């Protein structure tokens, strides 16, 4: 876990420096120049932060779902600790993605919220996280909480494939790559970037994923200690 911790810090630091400091020029010559994308300019830099954060919020949900599933199979409450820790972290990243996205949208599309398919998807994910935690707080015993929130996470997961089919049919897309290109209106991004931008972008994806794994580990350990203490209190 130490390795994950330091690697994630190094990678995210690299992304912050590279993503902000590398100049944008009309005709990039060297590795250390990004092209100017008309209409986006410096706002394009958000892709190094916003997209990985959004990805991490999805990752948080998938991990929560996976451990919820394992809880149902084994009835071992430790899996519930892992599941809820991941969901909490995922929800935090989901909020970050919503905020970074809508600030960016204000500058680029003129309003904070536009019901673009990907905005809608992240909003629904936020609703699912909210419902998941509302359900947990309304359940009396630890076992019922673990069991029913795992069931809910799985049910919510079952609806995910539908969004990928339905969104493009129902709502027009605004996200970069969407204009005249139907692939841009799916909830999943398709990227057309020069190699050096793509490199920074993928380093960022890996860096944020590792950051997620490290934070998740910290949260799980803290939650386990908390439960040990609450048992002693009895």
């Amino acid at each position: 876990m130490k390795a994950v911790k330091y690697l994630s810090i190094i990678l995210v630091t690299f992304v912050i420096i590279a993503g902000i400091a590398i100049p944008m020029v009309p005709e990039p010559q060297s590795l250390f120049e990004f092209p100017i994308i008309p209409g986006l300019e410096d706002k394009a830099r958000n892709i190094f932060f916003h997209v990985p954060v959004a990805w991490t919020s999805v990752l948080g949900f998938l991990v929560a779902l996976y451990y919820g599933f394992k809880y149902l199979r084994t009835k071992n409450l430790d899996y519930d600790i892992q599941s809820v820790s991941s969901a909490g972290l995922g929800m935090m990243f989901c909020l970050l993605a919503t905020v970074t996205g809508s600030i960016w949208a204000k500058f680029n599309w003129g309003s904070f919220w536009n019901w673009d398919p990907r905005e809608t998807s992240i909003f629904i994910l936020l609703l699912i996280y909210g419902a998941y935690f509302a359900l947990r707080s309304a359940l009396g015993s630890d076992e019922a909480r673990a069991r029913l929130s795992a069931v809910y996470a799985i049910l919510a997961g079952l609806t995910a494939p539908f969004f990928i089919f339905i969104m493009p049919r129902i709502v027009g897309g605004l996200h970069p790559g969407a204009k005249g290109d139907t692939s841009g209106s799916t909830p999943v991004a398709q990227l057309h970037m020069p190699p050096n931008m793509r490199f920074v972008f993928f380093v960022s994806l890996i860096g944020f994923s590792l950051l997620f794994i490290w934070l998740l580990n910290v949260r799980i350990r803290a939650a386990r200690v908390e439960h040990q203490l609450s048992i002693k209190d009895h």
Partner: protein
Amino acid sequence: MESGGHSMNRVTITAHDVAKDFNRRQIFRDISFSLSLPSSLAITGKNGAGKSTLSKILAGLIGSTRGSITYTLNDKQVGIEKFKHSIGFVSPYLNLYDEFTALENLQLLSRIRATTQQNEGRMKDLLSLVNLWQRRDDLVGTFSSGMKQRLKYAFALLHNPNVLILDEPTSSLDEEGIEFVQRIVRQQKEEGVLIVATNDKEEAGWCAKEIHVGMPER
């Protein structure tokens, strides 16, 4: 007479190191026993020791946290869904439908069970046994708690269960009620399996064996 003779199934119930936690707190652990007919077992312990919880686990209504219960029917191991139809259960946690009459409750529930034929004669016998035949067409919602308890006995015995589980068997019953419970108990422990969860010494004395649940004081 009243119970109309048991169907001749051989049954066994075996508990293997059963333990149950609520909110990460252990209620009881290491419960092991094996019952085959004819036999009787009393589950005793203080309030909150887990008597009701253990009887629900035995009836297959809730799961155990660790350990397992196995059931055999005519020497073949069967799952709880199959064995359920051999269990009769009277419990404060098992209510009947207030918006139906006593007779309707028995009819609807036995139709849902769907294993045996609708037997109006048996329903009449049982309702007479528990002294509710006169009130068969009254809504259960209008019954007193003692009358509801009586009706629970009629429901529990409706399908001639090989295994009868009684949690707080005489709660809210009058003397006459206690008497018919004793008659049922006597017959059941000779012909089938009887399990009684109680903290009453006398009721525990109905059974040949006794098991004590609960955790030692810390």
